């Protein structure tokens, strides 16, 4: 990744707040749910950013924001220099040709009344309506071959396919217009392990052959590690740590990442004893704790954490938002071991 290269996707101080009503009072008490609360990242052309975090930390909201599916509360998203908005107008629709999404629930994302071939060919029909039917059919057939769907499945309906096959249809559909950016929102979490591996390998192969840029969202650390060039760890709507996967997973610096990494199941028994078990659940994002969002569960909490929000600071490509790390002398960091 060269510094001179401009990023394909750059996100600056992205926020998405929801107005909610909490129980209490006659009509409830108004409150703000900060699903995504000020995150920034960049993805270089052809690279993959993995976004990890536990359920409810704002990963999927980030995916929808980045693609302009839902409007932002604050912040800016630029895709290839162009600002991404959530006004679903002709320009927004034209932009879909370059950015596509793979969904968590493939059955829900497919129209159950259209055959597999029609579903896959749909983006071509939308974005390249002048394409003759014969050519479109050929492209659909080659896409189906690429994702490992048999030719005779073209006339089947989504409910007649297995979960893995449906996800392949969704992937083929997303790739049919050769997008520059592909956002995968937990693309394999609904699949069983053997099919997960197939789909991941498939995505890897396709990325090598087509060279798309990807934002890959998952709660599965191993999946993210396999797929990503960079990893960002999210907690309660913020990025707490980001860097190269080897860095983040070998030498996690933020206490939350350390806990996550220690929870990866391992075959070697000796490592098991080092597991850091976090107490309690993540706080409700409606009343996020002041200061560092993680301080309520952090095993190494200090007084500063309760009052001051730590900034995401970078040391040699590895960014961490933790007072313990950022205040420590350069190079020291708190070691996991």
């Amino acid at each position, binding site marked *: 990744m060269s510094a001179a290269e401009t990023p394909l996707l750059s996100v600056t101080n992205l926020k998405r707040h929801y107005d909610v009503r909490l129980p209490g009072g006659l009509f409830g008490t108004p409150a703000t749910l900060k699903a995504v609360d000020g995150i920034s990242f960049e993805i270089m052309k052809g690279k993959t950013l993995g976004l990890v975090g536990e359920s409810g930390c704002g990963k999927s909201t980030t995916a929808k924001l980045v*693609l302009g599916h839902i409007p932002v509360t604050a912040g800016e998203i630029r895709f290839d220099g162009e600002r991404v908005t959530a006004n*679903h107008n002709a320009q927004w629709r034209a932009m879909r040709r370059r950015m596509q999404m793979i969904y968590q629930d493939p059955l829900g994302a497919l129209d159950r009344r*259209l055959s597999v071939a029609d579903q896959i060919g749909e983006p071509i029909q939308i974005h390249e309506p002048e394409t003759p039917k014969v050519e479109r059919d050929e492209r659909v057939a080659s896409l189906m071959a690429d994702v490992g769907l048999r030719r005779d499945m073209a006339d089947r309906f989504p*409910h007649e396919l297995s979960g893995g096959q449906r996800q392949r249809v969704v992937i083929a559909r997303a790739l049919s217009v050769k997008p520059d950016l592909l956002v995968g929102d937990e693309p394999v979490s609904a699949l069983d392990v053997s099919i997960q591996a197939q789909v991941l390998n498939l995505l890897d192969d396709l990325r090598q052959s087509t060279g798309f840029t990807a934002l890959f969202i998952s709660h599965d650390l191993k999946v993210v590690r396999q797929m990503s060039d960079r990893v960002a760890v999210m907690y309660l709507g913020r990025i707490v740590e980001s860097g190269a996967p080897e860095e983040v997973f070998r030498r996690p610096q933020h206490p939350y990442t350390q806990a996550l990494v220690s929870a990866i199941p391992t075959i070697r028994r000796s490592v098991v004893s080092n597991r850091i078990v976090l107490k309690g659940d993540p706080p409700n994002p409606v009343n996020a704790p002041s200061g560092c969002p993680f301080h309520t569960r952090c095993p190494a909490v200090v007084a500063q954490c309760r009052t001051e929000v730590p900034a995401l600071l970078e040391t040699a490509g590895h960014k961490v938002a933790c007072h313990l790390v950022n205040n420590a002398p350069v190079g020291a960091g708190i070691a996991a071991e």
Partner: protein
Amino acid sequence: MTLELNDPKSLAEDSGSGSVFTAKDKLTAFFETWPPLVLFALFWIALCAVVVAFAPLIAPYDFMAMDLPARLTPPVFFGGVWTHPLGTDELGRDVLSRLIISIRISVVIAFLSTLIAATLGVTLGFLAAYFRGRVEQLILILVDAQASMPFMIIALAVLAFLGNSLTLFVILMGFYGWERIARIARGLAISANEQGYATAVRDLGASPWRIYSRHILPNIASTLIVSMTLNFPEVILLESGLSFLGLGIQPPMTSLGNMVGYGRDYIQSAPWIMLAPSIAIVLTTLSISIVGDWMRDLFDPTLK
């Protein structure tokens, strides 16, 4: 008596009684795919379609031709003659010929009106679901206004003020039932928009027109078709009611309701004048309902 194991007949009988699986014979299988009631309904609808298409050719007499000496002839098996299979009315007009023309008129009116109501309802329902906000409020006010007024009164008022012509009558009947279809279409479209497939198609870059026409409409079509098949017989009945009151189809033109209305005077002396169109009304409305229900299941690929 010893059991002969090699006897193929006894073996076959044994295996037959012990088998869990019994193959369906062809007739049972046929009637399971085509239930007899559906077959009958389809047959009746097909017959109606033929009548609608070729009415003047099929009718044995001109429906307006009077034959006063032969008036009030009973139908064939009630002491009548084959020259007038369903008898004649008080002016000696052939009931069968009149029935054929009546079916044609009534079915065409009901079909066109239902089509108008469905188009209007689906369009307004989709507009409400797409724009939401003010547009939706306005459409819902229209729907409520239509639903809160008895349609018969509206129809009477319109026909009384604007006079009567077949075109006006069809358009008027087209306003019957649109509000139900609009409500159903709006509700289903809103819920479809919340479902993954519509959002996914939007995120693929599809235009609203494409989302609604190619994805949402086919997905909710089964419910709409059932709603339309409920509307169809109601229009026939409404047309019959208005014609019975003398505000629908005007003589010398004839329709099913018109026939019932004018045959009423002879209900005791010549009941066939009224019974023939009544039976036609019952059979047609029933057939449409049965076929509509059957079609809903047929069109749903997930039920196959």
